[in-house]
C-alpha cells in the first residue's frame, strides 16, 4: 500500500469512528468497539513479531498486564498524572520486552515460543502473589479515567475516540516502519534469516527492536484498558489471553498490519455473536457453556479451511 493511500484510509477510518462515537448510543456496541481497538493494538504488536520477524510469542498477555498494572498502580496508589503513567507503562512494556528478548532472541522458533510462554505465566503468578503492590487475586480498584484538562475520557463514546485514535496512530506509524528500509530488512528476515544475515542485516538487533515495539504497543493497550475499566485483576491476563492474541493474528493473517486488527474484530464479534445467538437456538441454561465449544470448533474449522487467514483471503479475491 502506498503511503498516500494508507493515510487516506486511516483518515477515513478516523472519520467513521468519530461519527460512531457521536451516534452509537448502545454502551454494549461501544464497549465491543473499544475492545476491538484495544485487542487490535495488542495483536498489531504481535503481528509485527510473528508476520515480519517470523517469531511466535506465547506470552504477549504479560505485556498487556505490565501496561495495565504499571499505569494502574502509579495512578491509583501513587497519584501520578494519568498520561505520565501511560507513558511509563509504554516504556515499561518496551523495556521488559527488550530484557526478555535479550537472552531469548538467541533462540529460535520453538524455544522462543516456550520462553515467552514461561515469561507470560510467571508474570501472571507475580500479579496473583505480590499482593502488597498488585492487590493479589482481588485486584486493584480506583484507577482514574484519563483526562485532558477538564475533559475526562470517562464515557464509552469518549473512550472509543481515545482507543481508536491510539490504534490508528499506531497503525500509521507501524505502516511507515514496514515500508521503510527496516521493513524491507524485516521481510528479508522472515523470508530467510540466513540470507538476511548474509546481506548484512543485524538480525538479532532487528528482532529485538521489533519485540520491544510489540511490547510497547501491547502495554499501551493494557494501560488504556486499565483506565477504561478503572479496575484490574489478574484473571484476564492469563495464558488464555496470550493464546487469544495469537489466534487473532493468525485468523487475520500474519503478513499484513491490518490482519491483527481484523483478527481482533473477528474474535470479539465471534465471541459476542455466539453469546447472543446460542440462547435463541437452545432454551436451556447451558448456553454460556456451549459458547466455548462453538468458539473452539469455529476456530478449528476456520484454520482448516483458511490457513492463510482473512488477509490471505482478501488478497486472493483481489
Amino acid at each position, binding site marked *: 500500500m502506498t503511503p498516500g493511500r494508507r493515510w487516506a484510509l486511516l483518515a477515513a477510518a478516523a472519520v467513521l469512528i468519530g461519527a460512531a462515537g457521536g451516534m452509537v448510543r448502545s454502551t454494549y456496541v461501544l464497549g465491543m468497539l473499544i475492545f476491538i481497538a484495544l485487542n487490535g493494538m495488542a495483536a498489531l504488536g504481535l503481528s509485527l513479531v*510473528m508476520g515480519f520477524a517470523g517469531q*511466535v510469542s506465547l506470552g504477549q498477555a504479560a505485556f498487556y498486564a505490565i501496561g495495565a498494572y504499571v499505569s494502574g498502580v502509579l495512578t491509583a496508589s501513587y497519584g501520578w498524572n494519568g498520561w505520565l503513567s501511560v507513558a511509563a507503562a509504554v516504556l515499561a512494556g518496551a523495556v521488559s520486552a527488550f530484557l526478555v528478548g535479550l*537472552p*531469548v532472541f*538467541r*533462540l*529460535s*522458533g*520453538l*524455544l*522462543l515460543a*516456550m*520462553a515467552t*510462554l*514461561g*515469561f507470560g*505465566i*510467571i508474570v501472571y*503468578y507475580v500479579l*496473583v*502473589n505480590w499482593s502488597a503492590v498488585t492487590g493479589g487475586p482481588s485486584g486493584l480498584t480506583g484507577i482514574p479515567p484519563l483526562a485532558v484538562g477538564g475533559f475526562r475520557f470517562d464515557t464509552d463514546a469518549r473512550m472509543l475516540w481515545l482507543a481508536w485514535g491510539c490504534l490508528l496512530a499506531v497503525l500509521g506509524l507501524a505502516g511507515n516502519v514496514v515500508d521503510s528500509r527496516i521493513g524491507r530488512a524485516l521481510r528479508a528476515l522472515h523470508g530467510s534469516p540466513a540470507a538476511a544475515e548474509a546481506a548484512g542485516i543485524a538480525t538479532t538487533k532487528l528482532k529485538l527492536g521489533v519485540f520491544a515495539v510489540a511490547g510497547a504497543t501491547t502495554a499501551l493497550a493494557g494501560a488504556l484498558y486499565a483506565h477504561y475499566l478503572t479496575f484490574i485483576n489478574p484473571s484476564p491476563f492469563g*495464558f*488464555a489471553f496470550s*493464546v487469544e492474541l*495469537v*489466534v487473532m493474528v*493468525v485468523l487475520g493473517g500474519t503478513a499484513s498490519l491490518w490482519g491483527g486488527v481484523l483478527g481482533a474484530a473477528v474474535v470479539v464479534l465471534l465471541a459476542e455473536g455466539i453469546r447472543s445467538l446460542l440462547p435463541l437456538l437452545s432454551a436451556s441454561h*447451558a448456553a454460556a*457453556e*456451549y*459458547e*466455548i*465449544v*462453538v*468458539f*473452539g*470448533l*469455529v*476456530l*478449528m474449522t476456520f*484454520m*482448516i479451511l483458511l*490457513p492463510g487467514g482473512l488477509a490471505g483471503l482478501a488478497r486472493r479475491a483481489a
Partner: protein
Amino acid sequence: MTAADQLAQYLASGLVVGGVYALIGLGFVIVYSVTRVINFAQGEFVMLGALLMVTFESRGLGAWAAFALTIACVAALGALLERAAVHPIANAPGLTILIVTIGASIALRGGALVVWGTDPFALPAFSAGPPLHFLGATIVRQGIWVLGVAAAVFAGLWFFFTRTYPGTAVRGCAINARAARLMGIPVERMWLLAFALSGALGAVAGAVIAPITYATYDMGLMLGLKGFVAAVLGGLVSPPGAIAGGFLLGVLESLSAGFLSSGYKDAVAFVVLIVIGLVQAAGWLPWRVAEEGET
C-alpha cells in the same frame, strides 16, 4: 519431623506427581517425533481420562473395566482428532496446526463443561487402606498406584518401540519420515497411531491422578503445560528423556513448594522452561531440544 524426614516427604510426593508429568510428557514426545506437531490438546486428554474414569466407575463398572474403557475412549478421540483436524492440513505451517489443536483443546474443555459442569469430582483410591510409611516419608496408597502404573506403561512402551513391528515403524517415521516411506512404512497410519497412543497416555495419567487431585473440566491446561515442560526437559523427541524430565520437574516443584513458597509452585515449571532455552542457546546442554523442521 526432622529435616531429613521433610526432605524424604517432599521427594516422595514430587516423584508421584512427576510420574504423572512423565506420562503426559510421553504423549507430547510421541506425537512430536512422528508428526512435528505440538498437540495442545494433550492436557485435555488427561482431563477427559480423569472425568470419564469417575463417570464409568460411578455407573457401577469395576475399576479395571472403567480404566480400560476410559483408555479406549480417549485413544479413539485422539485418533479422531488426527483424522478430522490435523490430517487435512498436514502440509500447513506448524503454527496453523498448533492453532487447530488449540481450537480442539478449547472445544474439548467446553464440551467437558457442558457434560460435567464446574463441580470437582472425587474418585476413590484404587485400593483402600492407611498411608504407607517409607524412609520417614508418608505416601498415600494411590501414590504407589501412580508409580506402579507409570512403570508398567514405560515398560510396555519400551517393549512396543523396540520389540514389535509397528513400534519399530513408528520409530522409523520419527527418525526420518521420507526414508520410512521409501521403506514401505505407511507414514499416514503412523500419524494416526501416534495420536491414539498419546490419547491413551493422557487417559492413563488422568485416571491415576484423579483420586489425588479431584477431577475438574479445567484441569487439563496446567497438566498439559507441565507435561510439555517435562517433554522439553528431555529434548522433546526422547521418551526416556521425557520420563526423566517428568520426575525431575515433579521433584523440583515439590521441593520449591516445601522450602520456598507454595504460591509460586506452578511457576517453577516455566522458570525451568526459560532456563533450558538459555542454557541451550549458550550451548551448555549435553543434548538438544529438537526444533521444527529437523529430522
